[in-house]
């Protein structure tokens, strides 16, 4: 009634058995599986290693003051994770290699070992919780501090499928806006109410500057206020190591300091509709003097 151990019996035709016969053999299978697991594990790590040497296949260049600490934590975590992955796969390959069936010999009867169990759990818990706690430093710096008072204020407005950036102008105050005033069709410079619905009657809004480019000075803290008109979007600048949802109905603050001049891409990272993948804008980090000049050139003519 019972079939023979191991189920190595094949019931397909002789010719095809010959082709796949080696796969069915226990000794061979154990060796092959061990090699297969090791190969996959080492291949995975090799893939990561090679990617680091290729341009565009690893983290983009970092240009914000918090990115050093963040990338450090990232490196630490990826190393620990890589080691854990490798050890587990090596161990799995090893037991598969070593403990294959041998004739009628029986396995070692054991229902477990509480001591080993507790030690393993404790070591894991220390490593994991340690990582969780050290990982909070950058987060606290980013999100639990207020932006300094002298920070450059920019309001980020997201909508399907573009970004508008608003600067408060010389008076340092944003003019009031209303959804009832939105005029999507007129994106001309200095348009009132324009796509953001800036109330022309509010004197604070007279000198507001609206742009489709985010231009910021290098080395100065920037305080963004994220808003969304229609659906949830996400302000994502890979080079800044920043990502934050812009949620309808919420004003979300985000502050950072960029320290390298240049032109970087802004993407939307939260699914927002059919052309989500096209919702791109540019971040231009300029020298402070160039930034001031740009802002003055853009200011609405009174």
């Amino acid at each position, binding site marked *: 009634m019972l079939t023979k151990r191991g189920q190595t019996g094949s019931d397909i035709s002789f010719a095809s058995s010959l082709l796949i016969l080696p796969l069915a053999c226990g000794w061979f299978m154990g060796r092959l599986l061990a090699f297969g697991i090791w190969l996959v594990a080492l291949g995975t790590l090799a893939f990561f290693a090679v990617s680091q040497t290729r341009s565009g296949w690893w983290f983009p260049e970092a240009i914000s003051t918090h990115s050093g600490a963040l990338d450090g934590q990232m490196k630490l975590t990826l190393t620990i994770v890589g080691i854990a992955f490798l050890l587990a796969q090596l161990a799995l390959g090893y037991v598969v290699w070593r403990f294959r069936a041998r004739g009628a010999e029986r396995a070692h009867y054991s229902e477990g070992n509480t001591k080993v169990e507790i030690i393993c759990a404790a070591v894991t818990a220390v490593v994991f919780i340690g990582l969780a706690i050290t990982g909070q430093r950058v987060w606290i710096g980013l999100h639990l501090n207020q932006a300094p008072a002298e920070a450059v204020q920019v309001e980020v407005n997201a*909508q*399907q499928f573009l970004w508008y950036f608003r600067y408060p102008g010389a008076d340092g105050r944003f003019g009031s806006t209303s959804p009832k*005033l939105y005029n999507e*069709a*007129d994106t001309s410079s200095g*348009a009132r109410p324009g796509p953001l619905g800036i109330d022309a009657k509010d004197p604070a809004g007279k000198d507001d500057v609206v*742009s489709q480019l985010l231009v910021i000075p290098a080395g100065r803290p920037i305080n963004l206020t994220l808003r969304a008109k229609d659906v949830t979007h996400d302000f994502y600048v890979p080079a800044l190591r920043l990502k934050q949802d812009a949620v309808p109905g919420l004003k979300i603050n985000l502050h950072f300091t960029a320290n390298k001049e240049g032109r970087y891409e802004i993407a939307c990272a939260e699914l927002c509709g059919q*052309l989500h993948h*096209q919702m791109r804008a*540019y971040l231009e980090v300029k020298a402070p003097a160039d930034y001031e000049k740009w802002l003055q050139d853009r200011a609405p003519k009174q």
Partner: protein
Amino acid sequence: MFSVRMLALIFLTAALALSLSCGGKKEEATPSSNAGPVWKPTGDEGNITGVISFTGTAPAPRKMEMENDAACAKLGDQFLDDVLVKDGKLQNVFVYVKSGLPQANFETPSTEVTLDQKGCKYVPRILGVQTGQALKITNSDDTNHNIHPTPKLNREWNESQLKGQGPIVKKFAKQETLIPVKCNMHSWMLAYVGVLSHPFYALSAADGAFSIKGLPPGEYELEAWHEKYGAKTLKVKVDAKADAKADFSYDGASAYVPGSLKVQPALVLP
């Protein structure tokens, strides 16, 4: 055991039928037909001609901001074309017969009306089609667009048209003036489509002139519509084989608050 295999077969057949039915058929919008016979010209039709004049000051040309899209930004300076005034004449006013026509079905033209996306604008900005007439939408730009009409009576749709993609042909089933058409990718892009059940409509040219030809004799209510300055109506009497005059005048100071402000009803009950 045979029957358990039957179970497997049933599921397989269902899956196959499902996958075969994937190539769903396109639905065609059919015009809603009015009561009455098909209208035929009798030979004693007249015309309406007119000029749209403009008083006051037209808004200064405003440069479009298109930095979000490199393909649009590289086109250089583009100006907003919602108000086109030249020598005191207003272009792009949509004039159509609002009421007074005999109860009849007007033949749907077999010609296509083309709406192109060119230079990150809709060309033309204002256009008219008849119910059931083919509207061919093309993309001549080096960028991706989506076309999103927001009608009140017709079915709303929203489709992408990628760069290099062939034309999209659409029809509108019901009379509706005028349907805003938008591109969500380029918020400044705006067109208006007037859908009419008859062929008696026209658009004012650069010199403000328009003409509606082949109207049966009768009294009509004529409406002129401009996206920024609103609608004006006029009673016109057309005599047999004669030209009737209908001039409209707009004033620059009368512009209503800009914006496409429409509030969607919270709950539409049938």
